[in-house]
């Protein structure tokens, strides 16, 4: 077991993170969970040149199934307003799960996860507390927010079209490409938005998208579906690669 743990820690780059953030340390955890906690120093700058230097007391709980299970991150000193994006267990909602998996798919390093997912979140918290709008934008809560991510990432005209894309992501590549593109162009997916779906294919196994689709489908309320149906009745839009990912929320 300890050998496995040692190998896992090496793969996750635990020491890399603790070296980069020397005030962070391992806290008592369990066989299933590695707990890292302490002050996290951020010194971050966005494209506009806005700089945030701050310290947050955080706790990161890394499941031994990581990176298949996302780390849970908590802020322990009440510096993140309770109303800011959180899960029901109080952990910070850093982003739509599939978006976070996208980062983990590139590298399983915890240091990169902190840099790419946690620091941007805390960067926004600091700016919101200074009275600014969150510069990266926010997603709605619940299934709607996740669908917003899919819609924007996959360049879909509506949330319902985005939901249909999630269904296609659970199919094998060739089978999904033979289906009609959810954007409503009348072309097959393969000849239309397949390029965008490729950004998510393989990020998670197909069974994961099956569960994701079931989850999203089940939690879509009538209002959302109606709004989405309304949207899909609008003239269909083809892929528009130059349209930027939603900039400001």
């Amino acid at each position, binding site marked *: 077991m300890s050998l496995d743990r040692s190998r896992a820690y090496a793969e996750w780059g635990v020491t890399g993170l603790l070296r980069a953030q020397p005030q962070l340390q391992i806290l008592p955890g*369990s066989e299933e969970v590695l707990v890292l906690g302490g002050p996290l120093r951020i010194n*971050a700058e966005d*494209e506009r040149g806005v700089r945030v230097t701050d310290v947050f007391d955080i706790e990161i709980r890394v499941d031994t199934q990581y990176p298949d299970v996302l780390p849970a991150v908590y802020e322990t000193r009440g510096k993140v307003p309770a109303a800011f994006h959180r899960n*029901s267990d109080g952990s910070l909602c850093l982003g739509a799960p599939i978006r976070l998996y996208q980062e983990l798919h590139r590298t399983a390093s915890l240091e990169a996860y902190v840099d790419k997912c946690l620091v941007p*979140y805390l960067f926004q918290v600091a700016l919101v507390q200074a009275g600014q709008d969150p510069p990266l934008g926010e*997603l709605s809560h619940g299934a709607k927010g996740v669908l917003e991510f899919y819609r924007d990432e996959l360049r879909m005209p509506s949330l319902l079209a985005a939901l249909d894309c999630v269904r296609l992501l659970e199919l094998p590549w060739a089978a999904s490409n033979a289906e009609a593109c959810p954007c409503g162009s009348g072309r097959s997916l393969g000849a239309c938005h397949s390029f965008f779906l490729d950004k998510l294919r393989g990020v998670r196994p197909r069974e994961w998208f099956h569960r994701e689709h079931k989850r999203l489908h089940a939690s879509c309320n009538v209002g959302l579906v109606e709004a989405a149906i309304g949207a899909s009745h609008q003239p269909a839009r083809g892929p528009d690669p130059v349209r930027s990912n939603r900039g400001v929320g």
Partner: protein
Amino acid sequence: MTESGRVASTTGVVFELASQLEIPTTLYKKAESRYAGLADWFHRKESALSEADCMVYPQGSFRLGTVVRPLDPKQEYDLDLVCSVAVDRRSTSQMTLKAVVGEEVRAYAKAMQIRQRVEEKKRCWRLNYTDDVPFHMDILPATPDDARFVDALVAQGVPRPLAQYTVAITDKDHHDYEVLGADWPKSNPKGYATWFESRMQEVAGLRIKALVDSLQYKSIDEVPAYEWKTPLQQAIQILKRHRDVMFRTNRQARPISMIITTLAAESYRGEPDVLSALRRIVADMPQRIRAARPLVPNPVNPAEDFADAWQANPDLRAAFFDWHTQLSLDTQMAAEIADPAALIDFASARFAVQLPIDRAKASLGATGHAGHVVRPEVVTRIAPNAPRPWGGE
């Protein structure tokens, strides 16, 4: 910074740490007078034990000279004692021995006007004895084991001089607790202490000789282990404090001192200073854990596994490994600290030790500043497509 400069600075820090974690010798002396007092009580004429061949001696960290200042100054010191009484196990059960010793401990508590109740534990009696020093004494009733078991230990590779100290002890939860003539649980604290001392005898030689030469002790055999102050003992104190701090929020999960002490003593190779001892121990410790049970055998009773609890509770095994991971990283990072303020923060965060500024500066030494590389400022770039905060269900 050069390697030699790094070693010099870390030596200073480690030395400072070791001296701050040490308890005053007077406290060891106080502990000695405590168990001497208890022994006198057991030997007094009216004692139920006065006729028996009875000995009281310390075990654990007071015996080994590895006591660490408690994190909380109000916390009690654990003084573990063995009360060894020669009894015939054909006519005396575990329960009887436990009861006889318990009676005498209670009478002692009464005579000393100790108000707190004597508590019965699984294997020992606990006497909370607080005057100017808060101690609790755990008194373990025991009886010398028979020659048959000593021979069995020798057959398992335990040297006879260590095996001969083996004792049979009582355990309230043992299936034969009330049965005459049955097998009793085993222990060998004196054998363990003798083994532990043998791991550092050579390096302690000069200091022991100096203490005898200065007439503080009559002979080298009289110099107790707490006076030896070897790099092994100091390294163990540093390890224990690091553990105490890391597990201050969850004491139940912390790696037990017996595991740390045994693995450290096994890893120690007679290094002459604390820093090299610490480095050796931290590097070698995990390899000292056996692949199959017993994972951490008692060196003087190989059937006993100090890591026995890891089987029922795998979290404890994970906790040991996590502690070692952090410890290993901390020993490396300590060597890279260039700035006295950072060193003070580090000592405080990892060891709960307040390093005075002049000591921190002195620890970094003459080589400290000129050779250090100033780390460039690290700025995290926030990508425009970074994840947007969401709210889960």
